């Protein structure tokens, strides 16, 4: 028993130390960072955060990221909900192949798609727009959303559908007002994973944008300047990218185990 908790504490230490170090650095001045190792800030400063939150070229990165993540989550859920319903309730020509094909997209390395995407979106005049990144992320988020939602929907007995139709519900009304409330936990879990995978991806987001829709992750690289690394600002920018994740986890922590329990990530 003692050993078990000791092991857990060691593991959590391993998880948290690098994050602590980032937070620690974000609260130091560059002089303090480079002049020697200090375990906590000797001259506590919020200047790095002030820099980011007041400089438009910095904070617009966060706004851009949020915009395409939100768009992606909305698009993924909107198209995946009816499709997942079809897979969970009906047999139709090519259903199994379709399902498998969708999943193979989850296996496709983003690096493979980077260049064709770049050209595709340039052709359609979508380069450097939020929707471009949102659509690109659909490549892996839509199959995922269909997969997770199908699992939740299969848990809802078919009798509910039949009863609703007998009661005279039309399909859209049934789906919106009867069915969706029944799987709201599933929708929450799906939204969580869409958010997560869109938020953490950078390769596509970086390649498909240049100025107007540039994500925060790409902006961070500019802390390398002629004067050397601006470590403090880099660390502060990093910490700010962790915050939304922490908030999201906190809100969905009780559903999380359930989503994973379906074994569908």
């Amino acid at each position: 028993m003692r050993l078990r908790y000791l092991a857990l504490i060691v593991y959590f230490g391993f998880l948290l130390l690098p994050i602590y170090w980032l937070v620690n650095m974000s609260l130091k001045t560059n002089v303090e960072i480079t002049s020697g190792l200090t375990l906590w800030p000797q001259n506590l400063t919020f200047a790095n955060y002030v820099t980011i939150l007041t400089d438009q070229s910095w904070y617009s990165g966060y706004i851009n990221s949020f915009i395409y993540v939100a768009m992606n989550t909305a698009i993924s859920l909107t198209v995946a909900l009816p499709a997942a319903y079809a897979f969970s309730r009906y047999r139709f020509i090519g259903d199994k192949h379709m399902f498998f094909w969708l999943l193979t997209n989850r296996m496709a390395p983003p690096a493979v798609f980077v260049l064709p995407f770049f050209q595709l979106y340039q052709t359609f005049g979508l380069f450097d727009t939020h929707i471009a990144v949102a659509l690109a992320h659909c490549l892996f988020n839509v199959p995922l959303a269909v997969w997770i939602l199908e699992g939740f929907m299969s848990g809802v007995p078919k009798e509910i559908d039949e009863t609703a139709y007998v009661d005279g519900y039309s399909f859209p009304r049934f789906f919106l007002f009867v069915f969706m409330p029944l799987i709201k936990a599933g929708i929450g879990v799906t939204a969580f994973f869409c958010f997560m995978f869109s938020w953490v991806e950078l390769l596509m987001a970086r390649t498909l944008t240049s100025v107007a829709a540039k994500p925060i992750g790409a902006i961070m690289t500019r802390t390398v300047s002629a004067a050397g690394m601006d470590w403090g600002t880099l660390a502060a920018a990093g910490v700010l990218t962790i915050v939304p994740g922490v908030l999201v986890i906190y809100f969905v922590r009780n559903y999380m185990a359930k989503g994973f329990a379906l074994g569908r990530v």
Partner: protein
Amino acid sequence: MRKTESNKAWLLVLPVFLLVAFSAIIPLMTVVNYSVQDIFGPGEAYWVGTEWFKEMLRSEDLRGAFVRQVIFSATILVIQIPLGIAIALAMPAKGWAASLSLVLVALPLLIPWNVVGTIWQIFARGDIGLGGWFVNDMMGIGYNYTADSLHAWITVVVMDIWHWTPLVVLLCYAGLRAIPDAFYQAAAIDGAGRWKVFRYIQLPKLRGVLLIAVLLRFMDSFMIYTEPFVLTGGGPGTATTFLSQQLVKIALGQFDLGPAAAYSIIYFLIILAASFVFYNIMVRVGRGDRA
């Protein structure tokens, strides 16, 4: 579930089909198109057949990246899967401690991948990073991941363990919570010890989630790009250059469209084939219907 036969269901799937087709099929066709041509500029392309494929398969760079990739994926699977199971077993099952553990464990998964790279880039540096400083000054090892290949390797592996073991933990944790109490009660009554409970109840019941965990970790580690790109940039030399980095180097760095496209197709096929083989092996090994 009993399913109704209806081809009208296609209407419901159509939006997904169109969207994914737009995002997957058109680019994939572009890739195939490039892979058999030599492109000099707009409108100037020559049919080269399988030339690029041959070149890529002969390429030392690709072979090197492939070997490194296989070693890397194998290493992290061997470490992450057992570690993930162990942590999931150790985590509290209910109460505030369970919630707290879940939040902490999930944390690395929600950090953008380049920030993961940044965190470790900083943490592992000998001059300003706690980890690097500890290894260097406290343990007296001359550690420098930017210069020493082995050190770079270890750093990338440790970073990946840090980043992705939580996924294995969460999957196993959810799998463990799904085991009904009656199984533990029966084991207690039958006089089974801790190890036997693990061997005969927990491990068999985790089979499903472990299958997913191994597949996901294999696939994702095979596609790893951003984190090592930020941390080591693939170096020193090509010591930590994996398949995706090699590909991006050819495609975006040198803009060699033909070879890059051929490379992409080979790469994708390897992942598909390996996932397929993995899946079948694991299903066969753990045969026995799930209760």
